[in-house]
């Protein structure tokens, strides 16, 4: 059955190109309407291309039919960036999952966008290299998605976010032409279109090949788990560690509730009675690592640490990380739904903002769980709730707004690594002036004057000159 929005000629053209990899079956369309956030839309047609040329043809066909398109990786985004609005054609890149070339001489790997982040690092392990960005979803998120969102992860504290690890991108532009942004040289000619494209959430085209930089695996790694009986001590220790001139490879924090849900899943021996734990990783050469361990230990002791646990081996280290990286999903053990925020605040304001988060959650009768990248001040307050409870979504949104406001008032930003997407676009005005946003839109428009690439994302409705696809925003969106 072809749903009314998928006009037959468009589907015919796409099926002529892709055969049964262009689909409009009712049940199947429902599978490509969501990402990892609470937002939901519905595609008109789903396409599953297997190479750049097919993507180029899909985009061309969309252009002929004046139909918007939206690229989708593994669908693990947390801000609705891949949620289809405006009856678009969804271009799912999951089948484009080849590692095309590993060029060790240039320390580059060319990959297709559907390659899973962790799969790449696993493949490179024997060569002594890895791809540094490691979002918590790294076992499933795609590198195309990492590029779209300029993803981070615990280890970007020391290594930098995706933008620092991508040298070049082959892109299908919204007009259906294909080009390579950036190159493998040190200083490509012209403007840094590569840097602009990364993090543009699919509003400037579809990445079809990516040259990622390979990072040497560190010779030594030490992982410490510190527990605190007061979350404020933990947060203060974070600032103090950095103030010592030490930048750990990762510096993560979990509060009491997070520890409980995580421990229920992994049984890693997380101290469930602690008010907060810090997971600290140091890597590099032996001397620096040992020195770092001592600094962390000393600072922790000055901040009333309970126990300092040093992972004895790789298995223990992996288990501790497994807990951290599965924390969001594990929240479902408390409540079936969660709303995850992603603000960043100056490290020095962590204690203050954390306390506000708890107060806001209490005031809205919600449960707040905090598990986050403390080292760079990137908070991830999770509001756990049950969507079947009447009126709860209003409270979740009100609390969310209050948390964002508190973060920005503390000198922070809207999103550290999840992106703006659909979820936070109408908060952009809290951070940017009208003129700032109009300037951003001019830049976007240089790539996509027709507004066909992932419409209605990033910038608030109305601020885009080309918002011609109606203002339908799915239920639950913050508008």
């Amino acid at each position, binding site marked *: 059955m072809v749903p009314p929005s998928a006009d037959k000629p468009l589907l015919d053209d796409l099926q002529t190109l892709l055969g049964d990899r262009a689909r409009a079956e009712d*049940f199947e369309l429902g599978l490509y309407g969501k990402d990892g956030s609470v937002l939901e839309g519905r595609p008109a047609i789903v396409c599953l291309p297997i190479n750049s040329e097919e993507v180029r043809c899909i985009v061309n066909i969309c252009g002929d039919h004046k139909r918007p398109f939206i690229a989708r990786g593994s*669908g693990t985004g947390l801000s609705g960036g891949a949620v289809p609005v405006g009856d678009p054609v969804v271009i799912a890149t999951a089948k484009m999952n080849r590692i095309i070339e590993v060029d060790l001489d240039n320390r580059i790997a060319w990959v297709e966008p559907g390659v899973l982040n*962790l799969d790449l690092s696993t493949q490179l392990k024997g060569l002594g290299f890895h791809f540094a960005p490691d979002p918590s979803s790294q076992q499933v998120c795609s590198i195309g998605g990492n590029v779209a969102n300029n993803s981070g992860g615990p280890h970007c504290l020391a290594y930098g976010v995706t933008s620092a690890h991508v040298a070049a991108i082959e892109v299908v532009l919204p007009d259906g032409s294909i080009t390579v942004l950036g190159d493998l040289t040190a200083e490509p000619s012209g403007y840094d279109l590569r840097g602009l494209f990364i993090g543009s959430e699919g509003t400037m085209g579809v990445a079809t090949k990516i040259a990622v930089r390979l990072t040497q695996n560190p010779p030594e790694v030490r992982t410490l788990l510190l527990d605190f009986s007061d979350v404020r001590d933990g947060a203060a220790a974070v600032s103090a560690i950095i103030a010592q001139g030490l930048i750990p490879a990762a510096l993560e924090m979990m509060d009491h509730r997070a520890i409980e849900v995580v421990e229920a899943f992994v049984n890693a021996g997380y101290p469930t009675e602690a008010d907060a734990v810090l997971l600290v990783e140091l890597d590099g050469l032996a001397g620096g690592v040992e020195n770092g361990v001592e600094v962390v230990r000393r600072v922790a002791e000055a901040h009333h640490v309970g126990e300092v646990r040093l992972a004895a081996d790789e298995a223990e280290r992996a288990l501790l990380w497994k807990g951290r990286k599965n924390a969001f999903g594990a929240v479902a053990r408390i409540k079936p739904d969660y709303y995850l925020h992603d603000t960043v605040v100056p490290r020095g304001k962590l204690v203050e903002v954390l306390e506000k988060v708890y107060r806001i959650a209490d005031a809205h009768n919600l449960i707040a769980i905090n598990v986050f990248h403390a080292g760079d001040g990137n908070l991830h307050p999770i509001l756990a709730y049950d969507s079947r409870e009447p009126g709860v979504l209003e409270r979740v949104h009100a609390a969310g707004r209050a948390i964002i406001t508190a973060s920005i008032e503390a000198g922070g930003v809207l999103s550290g690594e999840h992106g703006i997407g659909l979820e936070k676009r109408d908060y952009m005005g809290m951070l940017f002036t009208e003129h700032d946003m109009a300037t951003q839109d001019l830049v976007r428009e240089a790539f996509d004057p027709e507004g066909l690439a992932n419409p209605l994302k990033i910038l608030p409705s109305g601020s885009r000159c080309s918002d011609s696809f109606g203002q339908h925003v799915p239920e639950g969106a913050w508008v």
Partner: protein
Amino acid sequence: MKKVAVKLGIDSEDLASCVSCGLCLPHCPTYRVTQEESASPRGRIALMRQAESTGLIDQTFVDFMDACIQCRGCETACPAGVPFGSMMETTREALTQQTSYQSWWRRWGYRVLGCPNILTIGSRALAVLQRLKLLPSKLALPKIPLMQAPLVPSGEDVWLFTGCVMDVWMRDTHRATQRVIEAAGAGVRFPDKKAACCGALHVHAGLGEEARRLARRTMSAFPGDAPILVDSAGCGAQMKEYGHLLNTSDAHKFSQRVLDVHEWLVNHLDELPAAHANPPRIAIQDPCHLRHVQQAHDPVRVVLARYADPVILDDEGLCCGAGGAYSALYPDTAAAVRERKIESINRAQVHEVASANPGCLLHLQAGGVRVRHPLEIVDDLMRKDI
């Protein structure tokens, strides 16, 4: 596409418990080879939700549900603890009861598993055809025995469950298992024909009634309190779930008695003959129903490590594609899934692979892998030293 009304009857708490984080995707064998949302646990749950909320399904829904191997690797990966296996079983049972989901020939095939006489005769016929080279080679069947000597009990300390296809095709594995148990100092007892089939495949196919009938019959074949050892991971997993399936106190008590044979052996390791030098490198393929359902894959490592140098595969327990009847119903997907497993085995650079489930074993053998049951390997190595 034509829609029909169906009520799946999945617990609403279970349906709500998936937060769509997607962490299950890379651990799902069918997603891994198709990269299609409809072939992933997250997608299948979304489909179940869609079906429950509209009360309507169509053939695409049925096809998507049927293409799941039911390895339950997603359950191990799921941080939220979503009970995917039972949701899929509930779905399939509802489809079986309310639609023409299982064809007559599939139902007939499952029925035969519970009838040892027909199974033996059919199997003998296959063996004859095989020797006359009249079976197409693409069926990739193992060498089926023409005649088999009966199993001889040696005491009453433990039961050894023998099962359906495994007993007619691979009775020598039972003999090896028996010798290892005896070497650990216990006498082995065998059930009668009432324990002809555990009913695992029937549950997977949504034939709940038939599965419950087989479960009750199997239970009646094991009087007393002696532990019931199982050397087939799939059967062991099913028998451990009789409590859940029948929900009677007898069934719960029965399930408590069921152990994978390796779980029993780890507590009797010291009684086994001493290990010898130069243990061979053996890769362990964890059967899904041992790793993800019974969570008893570690004992295999421990038992094997007494005589061999076990190598853990680097694919985090991803399914091999066998899936009971799956490899017969979906040979292409099953072979594609197996290809990933074989790549992992090749990376491990071993001489031989151990697999504690007959289905996986046959499926891997058909893919050209040198593989035996871990206790056949142990039996061999253990006797070599005596």
